């Protein structure tokens, strides 16, 4: 594949993938600890 094509589309792809990946992972880990906190509060309430 042409180096120029890879340079342009590869760099845009990498930047976009990183942004989407960061968004998804940050949301997932935040939801996970929020669920854990809710669970712990419920357990403490019992």
């Amino acid at each position, binding site marked *: 594949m042409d*180096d*120029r094509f*890879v*340079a*342009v589309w*590869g*760099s*845009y792809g*990498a*930047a*976009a993938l*990183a*942004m989407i*990946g*960061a*968004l998804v992972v*940050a*949301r997932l*880990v*935040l939801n996970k*600890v*929020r669920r*854990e*906190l809710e669970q*712990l*509060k419920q*357990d*403490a309430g019992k």
Partner: protein
Amino acid sequence: MHKFANPTRFMRWAEASQPYLLALGIVLGFGGMVWGLTVPPDEEMQELIKPLFVHVPSAGLSLIVYGSMSIAAFVALVWRHPLPEIFCLAAAPVGAVVTVVALVTGALWGKPTLNTYWDWRDPRMVLELLLLFQYLIYIVLVRVLSQRDPALGRRVGSIFLVASVVTVILSKFVTEWFLVLHQGSSGANVIQLTGRVVLNLLGQGEDSSAAEPAEDDGIAGVYVPPLLVTMLGTYLFYMAIGIWLMRYELIRMRLRSLRRKQTAAHEFLAEATGT
């Protein structure tokens, strides 16, 4: 100023602004990228000017994040405040991600322009890789030490950040001090770019439709607006992600504290009932 130093108050304010930062970041970040793909070819680089709009924002942000983490770590060490430490914990993964993006886009761009993906003799490239290792070392250091004592882990991490900020300073000025393969500073920071856009709007700047490089720095006027938009979008987007991660770190701290209390209560009950 001092009232924002309260973690709960700061997070209330930060979380209220987070959806707007995220929306603006997505619109400007991805919009700027699309704009960057449609710019006219550069006089010298032709189509190869296009990776500029993703490489420069990520490389700049990798240095800004580490620099701000080092300042926050210094504040945490001097004033013993938890908020800067939480900021550092949240910013480190963001910084690591943008550094990887800077390295990948730089390597892909380097092949057709510098005729190599990587050159160990180039200090700018090596310093960027070193920066990635520093982000990873900080994350691992704090996580490992925090298993025994979270406060100790955060403190040692802060000392590491303050001591290793020299990489950021070197990375910023290395193209001026040494003869390197990587191109020199292009004047591509948000303040300078905003200044050029404002001057153009006032009709006092250079020809904004020209695709030939400006004399004072490396970026032609036509590329300044899309670069500024992409930089602003990228910064706002990762700032919004950072606020989510700060919330994540705060909840983790709360979880640890609640679990400790729960364990202590169970032990007390077991002792009291003799079971």
